[in-house]
């Protein structure tokens, strides 16, 4: 119980640090510009067909994938690497909190801000509604669920990258490299002969997940597990990386 309270307090402080940083609002502004462009162009490209617009905007446009792959590392880059560089991490590590609580709190803070980044896109739906066309609620629900799950995974990878990097620039680059690998490596399956490896790669392809499942209104427990397990593994590795400071 005490551990949860500590976790909540730490998370609250992390969330506060996001929302009281002007830089984060600049990130939000850039994010909204890209999202706005993606939405408007999708609407024009799909000739007003709202379901097709949602599919294109949430998973089918290049701007969506730029946001998804590059924003999480920017949110997480400073979490551990910057504290380590500035020396504030020592203070945190000597406080009566566990490494797990520190990592999870930072992760949850980033996840909260990530949700806040996507929240304004609800306005787009209101815009569509004002023109007499509402998208399929199921497709919207699974698309946003997909975005949340993908964010959960990529932010966890970002936390791990931050934990193993000497400074935030390296952390951001490392996080982006991980994300790009995650995005592009499974695409090799397209050129592979049929077999278990191709099947396995297809199963972990975040692009295929959106195209074949989330953007179509399907929630697949197999995919949910991929994201949650992937996030858990990344956070576990981040904790181990943090702990490794005590070994030297």
């Amino acid at each position: 119980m005490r551990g949860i309270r500590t976790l909540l307090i730490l998370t609250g402080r992390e969330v506060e640090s996001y929302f009281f940083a002007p830089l984060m609002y600049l990130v939000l502004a850039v994010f909204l510009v890209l999202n706005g462009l993606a939405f408007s162009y999708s609407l024009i490209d799909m000739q007003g067909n709202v379901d097709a617009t949602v599919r294109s905007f949430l998973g089918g446009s290049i701007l969506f994938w730029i946001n998804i792959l590059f924003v999480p590392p920017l949110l997480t880059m400073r979490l551990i690497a910057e504290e380590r560089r500035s020396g504030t991490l020592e203070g945190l590590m000597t406080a009566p909190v566990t490494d797990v609580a520190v990592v999870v709190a930072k992760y949850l803070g980033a996840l909260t801000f990530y949700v806040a980044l996507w929240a304004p896109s609800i306005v787009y739906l209101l815009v569509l509604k004002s023109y007499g066309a509402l998208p399929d609620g199921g497709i919207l629900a699974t698309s946003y669920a997909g975005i949340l799950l993908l964010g959960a995974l990529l932010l966890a990878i970002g936390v791990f990258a931050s934990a193993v990097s000497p400074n935030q620039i390296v952390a951001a680059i490392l996080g982006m490299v991980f994300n790009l690998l995650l995005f592009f490596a499974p695409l090799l399956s397209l050129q592979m002969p049929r077999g278990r490896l191709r099947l396995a790669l297809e199963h972990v392809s975040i692009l295929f997940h959106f195209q074949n499942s989330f953007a179509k209104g399907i929630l697949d427990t197999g995919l949910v597990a991929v994201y949650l397990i992937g996030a858990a593994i990344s956070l576990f590795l981040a904790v181990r990386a943090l702990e490794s400071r005590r070994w030297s």
Partner: protein
Amino acid sequence: MRRPGARTFGRGRRLGILLNVLVMMGLAVAAAAIGIWLTGFTDLRRRFDLTQAETYTLRLDTTRLLEGLEEDVEIITIFDRLTWHWDVDQVRPKAMEYVVDLLQEYRVRARGRISVENLDPRIDFDRVRDLFTEHGLSQANVVIVRSGKSRRFLGLETDLAEFDFGAASPVFQPTRLLAYTAEEALSSALFEVTQAAQPVVHVISGHGELSLSDASEMGGSYIGSTLTRDNFDVRPLSLIAERKVPEDAGALLLLGPQTAFLDEEIVALDAYLRGGGKMLVAVDPLGDRSLDPLFERLGLRLERNIMCYDQKGVLRGASVTEMWVGPARLGTPGTYGSHEITNTLAEDGVVFVVIRSAAVSPADEAIPWFTSLLSSHPDTFGDIPDGQTKAGNYQQDPRLENAGQRCLGAAFEPGGAYAGARLVFVPSVAWVTNRALYNFPGNDTFLRRSAAWLIGRKRSIQLPPRRPRAIVADLKPGEEDEIFRYTAVYLPAGALVLAFLVWLARRR
């Protein structure tokens, strides 16, 4: 006090920590792999369809079928996704995508009984080529459903989706995707390959007919592979040797006999038809005439004149004329009649090609069970041949050869002593040769549909089609710009204002 630079742990302790870390990480990765495998590749996997129209939710009949599957089934899609600028290419990929998505549901629901392989002829070239060779396929955009020796082939446009191909000019009326019929087609195919008995089709031989073993252009080997694709068991039949039609015959195919039948053979055929037999008759206008009396008893009158058309749509050779029959909007000289054999053809715009044809008509005009499947253009005329085996001059002799619309193929259910029998009659045989079946999808479909109608095959599982949802925002000129301003300018500007306010607050 510890000396600066001194190690916290000894060498052995550090090695122990390293081992511990490695083991822990290995266990974590293994646990992750097991978790992903359990949730993604076993019975634990579930897919929830949250779409409002439940687009991907399998119907009860399908789920019962899948859960009761006792044999392994292989489903292979061969879809060519290359998009040209034709209007049909804009909607065809949607239907392909739907079929692939639906098959995911089938696979998950069948708990390992179904394997699905999605092939693109441009990527999986070798595999597709092998399948084409194995099954005598000539066109992509098919789904193969096979289990053991049974197989069914489903065409994208003929079985899996319903299209409105619009007008001849896509500018005025582009092709539209009307409905997805994939679930009915796939579930029926699954049922047929796993549970239904395989209907037997006998191909009569011994009179110079098209041979199932002749793989040349003018041979008939594709007839076997075409019908096998629809789960028919195709066997040759020598009436001379057997003296009667086997009891297991679902239907007979008579494909261009050139020499006369013996009396015993005619008696055997007559007995078969009197017993409610089913028969596809494709006779060459210049071929054998020994069966004409039998046809007349059935109520069919066959003109032996070769149908010709002097205008668009006819290619003339030394002994061949080609008559193109299709939907009127395609501008073909001939048209389809309304019948379950030709209805799909008419919707698809697939053209049937009749090569060197005569005309057929009911012996008695009052016969109600005669349906013309293929009609020629009103300007066609029957060219009277020179003698029994030579074609005429292909020129209309107005004194003898009258122009007029004629029936080039009919579905026929005789009454009286032959009640219960069914015939598809096409007074031409070249339409069913390897060359024709390979080059003209309409001929292939016509043959398959005819065989299905003859044996009375309905879809084993009947399910209503699903309509694609298309809600379109009613945007007026200028409103797109307005949306752009709200979403890509005003909203981000709000974030910048917030950034400024936070900056101000922090400065204070």
